[in-house]
Every structure is written in structure tokens, then in C-alpha cells.
């Protein structure tokens, strides 16, 4: 027994040393490649938000092949630990760092100030620095379209929306969705429940069930898992997905449509600009025109005329003839927030903290 | 004991066993032989090494050197499971039952070949059968908490029988038993011996040795100093002599009885059990004056312990009053009562008297640490405390490797001495002693009694609770007898007899009153 332990120890030590020898040689080989750090809020296995980001990262990796090396940091909390993680990425040789969740922004800005020679890319916020950009997509456009579909398919006119946090991003999405709903059915309402988490399968499901219990027959969501959609279709009701094509993942036609991201379309040109030495700080808000956002295939349950109407609206937005937050908008207390003929500025959209008419619920 | 059923084959042979602990040689080349059907009484002063020797036989400790033969086969015994497999079982000085489990569960707890889900129905049947056979009345479903000490003892014995032990080790089994319970135990032992079982019996009660055992072996300071057939011993005095190595006084000098002011005055004290039922204390009234020892006699469990805990503030009373030193102290906090000058030697030394995981020195200072002598404001004077503890260890001859040794490593008797030293040193007029000589050797018992008398002679009021009538008659000035929460009578110690006390203890009131 004792001899066995000793033997095991020796084997372990020898193999450790042998391994060590081998990989040291490998380490020094590649310096010409661009090292890219990517920070995710959750493991990409969530099949939601981080998953879609990772799809973008993979597309970028495939596009550049040997020219880039990606270091992924998953499941990083949105507190000061994220600063340390960024510092570690920089130590590991990263020249550009992406971070995909809202609350990283302050920490990223802090690190950016300390490392002027590294580029920083923050997704979904608005802070910047000469070496830090923020980027996002006009997902609200897709939310509007999915709202139209939801309104058409809802028999009761009561639609539920499972929201993560009351950040401007989520509030904007709910507003756009509701405007889409109201465009088809001016009497329909959208009821919001907050889960106060991006990623928590059971809480997300609970939220959806609460809405279904109140009589909602379509459930939309701004969450990272498929649980709200699953809860809806399990009860024979409809769902609107998000992030990825939930219809395919859940395997049910009652998932009517999913607004989706295509982050690769941002990451590829950005990395290219670093390689070319033309990177510039910006606040990037991509829309339909550069295909950062799109709709999944629409479920066959949705009538053809409705699909046509959606496609027409999409074309209008693509051609910049019309956008979601144009014209008179009232908030859900009935007060006029924007007069007819006005267009909401990006700044106002990025900081929005009130709900439009038709939303049942409150931001705070 | 006459009905000896031995055919002379040795079942246990321990040869030249040595065991040392840091700072002490607990056993020094001790040899011991137990024959089939024999009861061997193992005697010795507190800390002589009796429990240690037995703990090696059941595998709790390992000898440093020496060998053990069981039924003629050389054995290494590593654990109680090992010894159980060899048919050896032990009842420890401190019981090892799990309080919140049932009798049946305790009996099978830790057994090796138990299936994952024990067949409790069968187990209970077997327990009931065994208890009938030996006349040990227990209820398998009762929870250990709710049992008296005597009943717990029966559970311990059943545990051994259930597991088929042929060699029984009883470490001071009668120390906590009432005289009646001791007699029952004697009967049970006899029945077991008649079935060819053998026993090693540790006790400090000399009369038990004379009536229970076939052979006597005496340990002194870790060495075996004598092995003798019980029949060859003339009297108790000789036995005590063998143990201590000097003459033991069985009568004590004391000053004249000159009682002063009433220090403890208890009036119409009533304590009711939680949830209703017969009162635990039923209109108890008495007073203890300075310069007297007031004894309380009674079979354990008749309210004596609750009475002392009420006086020391540990239990709440429902009626009546307690005055200490003239001040009303009814339902005051234990601290207020301690500050009033009351010392308390509690009944349950392991659970109430000491903190086992703290050192001897710390335990000795647990009453006085509040005083200016041992602390300055909130800060303890560490070096002063060390000197204080050193002094007490010497004055009360506490046997310990050092004052830094954890109290739990001391022998039972020395733990009791630690408590005694602390309480007597602190005593400021009132001393409440509950079974103070339980588990003490004859020498130490003598010392305790002397100390109680010394307190009395110095003018303290001493309340002594004891089950041993000889002790009360020898030490006390007045004796109250308690039965079912009531005081049956209060007698002058010089004018009463064991017989009269015995009647009262059984609840038979004195005639002609």
C-alpha cells in the first residue's frame, strides 16, 4: 500500500516533468499572431446570449485562421474581479479585449485608462475611452417585428414579457416590442415581469409561468435561456425567442420567431482594423444594414400575409425610410413623451427609463 | 461471592503492559489474568491507571509494550469493533450513549454486520427477550434522554449482551447508581457469571468489592501492587490500605457543633415540571446555618439535584423563596448567586463541572477569573493565574502532567478534585456539594469529607447531597430526607440511624408525629 503510493507519486512527478519539457518549446513559437481576449458573462453552453457571442467569435476565428489566437474567459462576475481578469489577459499578450455584458463597462474603462496600448471593445454599454469602443446592435428593430407577429397570434390580446434587468437595453426592447404589438392590435397589452438575472433557468421559467397564469398567451423574453419559451409551448401557448433560433432548439412551431444576433459581423471588421492599424474608438450601433441583427425563419403557423407585412416593415427600416421610435409616443401613464414628427435620438434611446403606452409594469 | 463458576482457564491475559502519556506513565509493566467465570475487582486510587489498562483491552488505546492474549491467542486489538469480535465489551465510566436516539438504536449503533436499513422489529424482539432473561427492564422505544442513570446503565449492559460479549468490563458502574440499583446490578452479574461469562469490575466502593468479587487486584501509580483472592482479605480497612499504601481514616475529627446565622433559607419552594404533572419540588422548606453541614439524603431522582440547581440559580422556581446570606435570591441569575459567595460542586461533573477541552489551569480559574486577584478589569492576569492554578494543584493533590493538560485527559477522580479545589477555594460562606465523593477513591473521599468539615469549622454553611448514608452520618450535623420532591423529615445526625433514614427514603413517614 505504502509502496503503491510512493510509486504513484514518482510516476506523477516524472510525467509532470516530462510534460513540462515538451510544452516549453511550444510556448515560444508564435508571437506574430494577434491575441484576442473575450470575456463572457456566462458559459457559452447557456445556448443564449454568450452562446451567440461565441458563435461570432468562432466565425471571426475561422475568418482569420492562424492570424489570431483567442483566449476565452467565461463565467466572469460583473464586479471588480473582471478588472483583474482583463489585466491577466493583457499579461497573456492580448492586444484587444471584448467583453459582452453591460456591467463590465466601468471596470473596462478603468483598465483601458491604465493600458493605452490595448484596445477594448465593450458590448451593450455606452462608456468609452480613446482606446475603448462600445458596440451594440439595433435589436429593437427586430423586437418591433416580433411584436407584430405576437399581436397577430394572440387571441386574448394579453402578451407577457420576461425581462432580466431594467437596463435601458431591456426597456428599449420592451418598448419596441410593444409598439410592434400595438401597430397590429391597438388594444393589446404587454405585461412585464422582472427576474433580476440574465441567466437563471428556474427563475426565468417561474417568470413565464406567472405570466401564463395571468392569461397571457404569447411569451416574449429578454433572457439567456430557452426556459420561458419552453414554459409557454408546454402549455400550448406561443413564444417569441431571443438570441438564437429557439424554434429549432426547442423544436416546436409554437415558437413563432426569434430576434437574433450576428456578432461576427462586428468582430471581423474590428479585428481587421486592428491588423491594418486603423482601429478607432467609436460608439457603434449596427442595424439591419450591416446584418448584426436578423430574424430567425418565421414559424409556418404565422399566416402568409403577416409574414409579408413583417418583411415590408423590415425593408422600410433597412432603407431608413422609417424607424421604430419615430412619431408621437406616449408613456404608459398616458403622458406624451415625444411629439409627432419627432425622431428619438440615439442618446435618448440609450438611456431610456420609461415604458410606452400598452406596457403593464414599471421600470423601477 | 461464593457461587464461583470457574474452571481455571484464563480468558484474558495481559502481560507486562506499559502505556505512557505525555508526562505520565499510566501503566508500568502491569500484568493481569482473568479466568473463566471469575469476577476480578480492579482497584486503585484515582489516576492509578485502571481505566487506561481496560481501554487497551478493548482497543481504544494501544499499549506501548506488552502483549495481550484472549482465550490463549495473542491479539492486537485496534478498535472496539475488534474487541467486540473477540467477545469483550466495556461499560465506560462516562456513558457513551447517544442522547437523542432510542434505546434500540443505541444498542445496535456501530455494529458491524448491520444491514443498511436495520430490521428494527426483529432487533426490538431480541432486546425484549434478552431483557426478560436477565431481569433488565428496558423499553426499546424510549429515548435515552428520558432515562434515569440506572436505566441508562441497563441499556449499556444490554448493549454488551446483545452483541454477545463474554468478557465484561465494568468501569465504576455503581458510582452513579442508587443502593437499590447496585443490588440489581449484582443480581444481573451473578446470572451472567452462571452462564460462564467473566467480568472485570472497577470500583471505589469497598463493600462492593467484598461482596461482588472473587479476586482483587490493586494498581498503585500505574504499577500492579497486589493480587489476592477476596476471601483472604480480612476487612475493608485492609483493602483501603492496599490501595493507598497507608491507613485510611474512616472516622473524622471535627470541631464542636456551634451553628450561627441561617445562611441558606428555603421557604415553601415549589417547582413544577414543564407540561404539568407531579411537582418536582413540593413546598420544600429548610435552612442551613453557618458552621453546620446540612445533609440531604434520598434516592437519586427525588428532587435533590433540582433543589440545588434552584438555589444556585440554574433552574427557575414556581413558588416560594430562597434567601442566601439574608438576601432574597429567588430566581436570581447564577452570576448574582456566585457573587453572593456561593460555591457549587454539581452533580454531573463532565457536563456541568468542567470544560473538558480546556486546561486544568483554566478550569481551576473559572470561578475566580472575575475577581481582582486574577484579572485586571477585563484583562486576565495570565501569570498570576498560572501561579494560582499551580498552588491549587498542589494543595488538593490533583494528579496531572501539567496545568496545561486538557481536563478531559485526567482520571475521573482527578477531574472531581479539580472541581473541588476550585469551589472550596472560592467558597465565601455557602458551599453546595452534590454527590461530591462520587467516583473518588477512598483516600480522595476522605480528603473531600475532611474539606467539607473544614469549611464547616471555619464557619461556612455546607449543603451536602449524598446517597451514601454512612457519609451523611459521618459528616453531617443535620440530615433532611427527600422523597418525591418533599422533605420527609429533618433529623439530628447524632440521633438517627441508617435504618430510620432508609425508611424515610422509601417514603415511609416516621411514626408518632
Amino acid at each position, binding site marked *: 500500500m505504502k509502496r503503491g503510493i510512493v510509486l504513484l507519486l514518482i510516476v506523477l512527478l516524472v510525467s509532470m516533468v516530462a510534460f513540462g519539457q515538451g510544452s516549453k518549446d511550444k510556448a515560444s513559437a508564435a508571437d506574430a499572431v494577434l491575441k484576442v481576449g473575450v470575456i463572457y458573462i456566462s458559459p457559452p453552453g447557456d445556448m443564449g446570449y454568450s452562446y451567440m457571442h461565441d458563435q461570432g467569435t468562432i466565425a471571426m476565428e475561422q475568418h482569420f485562421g492562424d492570424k489570431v489566437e483567442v483566449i476565452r474567459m467565461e463565467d466572469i*462576475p460583473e464586479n*471588480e*474581479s473582471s478588472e483583474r481578469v482583463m489585466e491577466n489577459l493583457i499579461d497573456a499578450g492580448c492586444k484587444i479585449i471584448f467583453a459582452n455584458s453591460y456591467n463590465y463597462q466601468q471596470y473596462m474603462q478603468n483598465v483601458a485608462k491604465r493600458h493605452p496600448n490595448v484596445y477594448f471593445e465593450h458590448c451593450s454599454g455606452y462608456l468609452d475611452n480613446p482606446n475603448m469602443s462600445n458596440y451594440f446592435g439595433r435589436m429593437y428593430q427586430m423586437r418591433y417585428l416580433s411584436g407584430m407577429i405576437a399581436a397577430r397570434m394572440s387571441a386574448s390580446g394579453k402578451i407577457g414579457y420576461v425581462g432580466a434587468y431594467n437596463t435601458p437595453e431591456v426597456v428599449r426592447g420592451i418598448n419596441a416590442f410593444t409598439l410592434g404589438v400595438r401597430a397590429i392590435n391597438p388594444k393589446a397589452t404587454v405585461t412585464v415581469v422582472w427576474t433580476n438575472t440574465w441567466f437563471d433557468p428556474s427563475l426565468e421559467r417561474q417568470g413565464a409561468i406567472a405570466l401564463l397564469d395571468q392569461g397571457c398567451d404569447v411569451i416574449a423574453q429578454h433572457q439567456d435561456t430557452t426556459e420561458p419559451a419552453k414554459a409557454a409551448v408546454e402549455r400550448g401557448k406561443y413564444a417569441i425567442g431571443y438570441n438564437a433560433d429557439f424554434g429549432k432548439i426547442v423544436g416546436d412551431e409554437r415558437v413563432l420567431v426569434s430576434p437574433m444576433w450576428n456578432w461576427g459581423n462586428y468582430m471581423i471588421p474590428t479585428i481587421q482594423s486592428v491588423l491594418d492599424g486603423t482601429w478607432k474608438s467609436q460608439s457603434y450601433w449596427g442595424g439591419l444594414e450591416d446584418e448584426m441583427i436578423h430574424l430567425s425563419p418565421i414559424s409556418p403557423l404565422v399566416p402568409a400575409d403577416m409574414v409579408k407585412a413583417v418583411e415590408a416593415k423590415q425593408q422600410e427600416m433597412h432603407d431608413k425610410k422609417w424607424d421604430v421610435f419615430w412619431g408621437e409616443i406616449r408613456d404608459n401613464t398616458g403622458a406624451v413623451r415625444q411629439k409627432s414628427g419627432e425622431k428619438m435620438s440615439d442618446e435618448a434611446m440609450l438611456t431610456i427609463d420609461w415604458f410606452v403606452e400598452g406596457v403593464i409594469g414599471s421600470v423601477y | 461471592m461464593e457461587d464461583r463458576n470457574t474452571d481455571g482457564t484464563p480468558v484474558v491475559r495481559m502481560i507486562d503492559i506499559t502505556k505512557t502519556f505525555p508526562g505520565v506513565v499510566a501503566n508500568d509493566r502491569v500484568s493481569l489474568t482473568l479466568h473463566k467465570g471469575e469476577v476480578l475487582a480492579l482497584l486503585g486510587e484515582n489516576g492509578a491507571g485502571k481505566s487506561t489498562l481496560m481501554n487497551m483491552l478493548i482497543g481504544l488505546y494501544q499499549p506501548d509494550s506488552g502483549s495481550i492474549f484472549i482465550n*490463549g491467542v495473542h491479539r492486537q486489538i485496534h478498535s472496539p469493533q475488534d474487541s467486540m469480535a473477540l467477545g469483550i465489551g466495556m461499560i465506560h465510566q462516562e456513558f457513551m450513549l447517544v442522547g437523542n436516539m432510542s434505546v434500540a438504536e443505541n444498542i445496535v449503533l456501530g455494529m458491524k454486520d448491520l444491514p443498511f436499513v436495520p430490521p428494527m422489529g426483529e432487533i426490538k424482539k431480541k432486546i425484549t427477550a434478552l431483557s426478560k432473561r436477565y431481569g433488565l427492564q428496558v423499553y426499546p422505544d424510549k429515548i435515552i434522554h428520558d432515562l434515569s442513570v440506572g436505566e441508562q446503565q441497563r441499556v449499556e449492559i444490554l448493549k454488551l449482551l446483545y452483541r454477545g460479549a463474554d468478557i465484561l468490563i465494568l468501569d465504576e458502574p455503581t458510582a452513579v447508581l442508587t443502593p437499590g440499583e447496585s443490588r440489581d446490578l449484582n443480581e444481573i452479574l451473578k446470572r451472567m457469571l452462571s452462564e460462564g461469562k467473566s467480568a472485570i469490575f472497577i470500583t471505589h466502593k469497598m463493600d462492593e468489592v467484598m461482596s461482588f468479587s472473587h479476586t482483587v487486584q490493586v494498581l498503585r501509580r500505574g504499577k500492579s501492587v497486589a493480587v489476592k483472592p477476596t476471601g483472604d482479605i480480612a476487612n475493608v480497612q485492609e483493602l483501603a490500605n492496599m490501595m493507598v499504601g497507608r491507613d485510611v481514616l474512616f472516622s473524622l475529627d471535627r470541631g464542636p457543633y456551634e451553628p450561627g446565622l441561617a445562611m441558606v433559607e428555603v421557604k415553601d419552594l415549589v417547582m413544577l415540571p414543564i407540561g404539568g404533572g407531579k411537582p418536582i419540588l413540593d413546598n420544600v422548606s429548610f435552612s442551613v446555618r453557618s458552621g453546620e453541614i446540612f445533609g440531604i439524603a434520598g434516592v437519586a431522582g427525588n428532587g435533590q439535584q433540582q433543589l440545588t440547581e434552584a438555589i444556585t440559580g440554574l433552574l427557575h422556581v414556581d413558588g416560594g423563596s430562597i434567601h442566601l446570606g439574608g438576601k432574597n435570591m429567588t430566581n436570581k441569575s*447564577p452570576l448574582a448567586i456566585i457573587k453572593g459567595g456561593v460555591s457549587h460542586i454539581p452533580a454531573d461533573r463532565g457536563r*456541568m*463541572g*468542567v470544560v473538558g477541552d480546556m486546561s486544568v489551569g483554566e478550569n481551576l480559574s473559572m470561578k475566580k477569573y472575575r475577581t481582582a486577584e486574577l484579572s485586571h478589569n477585563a484583562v486576565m492576569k495570565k501569570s498570576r493565574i498560572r501561579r494560582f492554578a499551580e498552588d491549587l494543584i498542589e494543595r488538593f493533590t490533583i494528579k496531572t502532567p501539567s496545568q496545561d493538560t486538557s481536563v478531559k485527559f485526567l482520571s475521573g477522580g482527578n477531574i472531581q478534585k479539580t472541581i473541588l479545589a476550585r469551589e472550596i477555594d472560592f467558597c465565601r460562606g455557602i458551599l453546595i456539594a452534590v454527590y461530591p465523593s462520587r467516583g473518588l477513591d477512598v483516600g480522595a473521599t476522605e480528603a473531600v469529607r475532611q474539606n467539607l468539615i473544614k469549611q464547616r469549622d471555619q464557619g461556612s454553611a455546607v449543603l451536602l447531597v449524598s446517597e451514601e448514608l454512612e457519609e451523611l452520618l459521618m459528616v453531617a450535623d443535620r440530615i433532611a430526607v427527600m422523597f418525591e420532591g418533599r422533605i420527609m423529615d429533618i433529623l439530628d445526625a447524632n440521633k438517627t440511624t441508617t435504618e430510620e433514614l432508609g425508611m424515610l427514603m422509601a417514603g415511609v413517614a416516621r411514626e408518632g408525629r
Partner: protein
Amino acid sequence: MRTHLQKRDNRSMRMTILVPIISLLVSFLLGALVLLLSKANPLVTYQAMLKGAFGSQTKIQYTIAKAVPLLLCGLAVGVAFRLKFWNIGAEGQYIAGVIGITWVMQFWTFLPVWLLLPIGMVVGVACGALWAAIPGFLKAQWSVDETLTTLMMNYIIIGYAEYLYINAWKAPRGNMGTILYPEAAWLPRIWGRVHAGVYFALALVVVLYFILYKTRWGFELNMIGKNRRAAQCQGVCIKRNIVLGMLLSGAIAGLAGAIDSAAVTHQLTKGVNSGYGFTGIIIAWMSALNPFVSILVALIMAALETGSDALQIMKLPSAMGEVMQGLILIPLLAGSVFIDYRLVSRASHTEATP
């Protein structure tokens, strides 16, 4: 051959020191095995982890800064554990501290700025103490089980903190959280990322050591923890001391929260339930409730966290960090068994007739 555990006759000093060291070695070997199975080189990985935690000045600074709240939470839990009061609510008491200081920093604007920090810290400490005193009181008065109450109270205050930073106190802009404290009221840095909280933590170690080992009250707490009934017989008031002990325990956890938010986060924000309070339980346990040993253990725990970034950088799966932390902890905790027990093999000893 069979082996089994046997109780040691005596607790030896040598074992108390040797066992943790050996456990640590076993931990690393276990970790090495797992790493080998995931085709990573253990030596290189450990080296990277070590470098990740201590490889440069900034890394040392990050590790020390992380160790400060961990140490304080370990001390907090240790005080309660000394009383055998199973306070697993240090997490909640920490958050109470953060809420307390944030309240002052946000709303006591009538105060001169230089007063915000000291008053904020005092209020944070008070909030932590109060949050801990509630289960203490429930236990003392009605013997309500403290493991349950302290645990439940964590969830209550986590929910409340969430309500504050998402709704009631949410800043109009910036991260999901309250507005940042005025910069003049931040706890100053003393060496890179290392802030003045280190002084507080180290001073507290000394003070606590003094209280626990040198004062009457410490003596009483020790008695209560080791034998409640005996302590009562010696006139120690159990109820009062449980409440007092919990006040102290909670105050220290609250201090941890106040310091960390005054020095590092400067706001009440998402991520406030960082798990420091739970790690504090492990720290208290592993350091055998000794404040000085806690310093070392807190540093190890901090290094395990800061160092495990290296695993992902080496392209190991993200769960590996937690696996490694667990692997390193389990033998350490299990190892404590061997301080009191030893392993013996049995067959080699049974011999034949005399």
C-alpha cells in the same frame, strides 16, 4: 489488507502542523491527476496559477486586495464559531455593511465629505452587527436554530440589495448600481491595488487575538463554545454572550463590506453577493479559529481565486477553476481528521498463539 481509522491517544503538536502540509501536498497531487486527465501539464499549470496570483507586483496587489474581505469574513465567522454558533450568514452581514455605507455616502450629503468615510464605515459596521444580532437574539431567546436563520437572512438581504441597486437607489447612468461614492470619500490606496483596508484587517487580527485569548470575555466565549452548561454553572450568561458574540461577528462582516465598497467598488452594485461570507466559513474552519492563522488561509484562498484565471488563459475549460479550488480544499478539510485519528492496517498485526 484492510486499513481503518484509529483515534489517537493524544492530540500532538507535530500532527497539527504536519497534517495541513501533507494535505496540501495531496491536494496538489490530486489536482495534478485531474489536469493530466484533461491533457494539461500540471507543473506548468501550477506554475501559471502561482504566477497568476503572485507573478508580478500588480498580481500580488490583486491577491492581497482580495484577501482583505476574505480575512475579515473569516474572522467574523471565527468569532461566532468559537461560541459554537453556526453563523453562516456572514455573506448577508457583509452585504448589510455595504448597504449601510452606501446609504451614508449617497444621502448624508449634508456632511462634509471627509466625514462620509468614517461615518459610513461606522454605519456599515452597525448594520452588519444588527443583521447578525437578529438570529443571535432568536437563538438566545427562543433557541431558534441559527443555521437556518442566518442562511435565510442571507437571501433576504441579497434580495433587498438587489431591489436597492436595480430600483430604489439606481444611478441614472453607469453600471447597474448606485451612484459612485464621492471620490474624496474613498478609502485610499496604499500600494497599487492594495488599499488601507489592509491596516484595518491586520489591526483587527491583533485586537481579536487579544480579546479572544487575553480577556475575561474571550475566556467566557471559549467556555460557552466548549461546554455551554458548565459555563452557565460558572455564572456566564449564555444568552447575553450569544447576542454579544453575534454583534461582534456581524460587526466584523459589516466592516468587511464597508471596507471593500469604500476601497474597491465605490458603490452598491451587482456582484455584491460575491461569496466572501461563505468563503469566510472555510477560512475560519481551516485556521482552527486562530486569527493569526486566518491571515495565511485567507491569502491562500485569495490566491486560489486570482490564480485560477490562469487556467482559462491556458485554454482549460472554465469549470476547471472551480474543480481545482474544490480539489485543493477537500483534502485540507478531510486532513483535519488525521490530527485526531491515525490510519492503521490490520492484517499485518494479527499473530498466532503464544
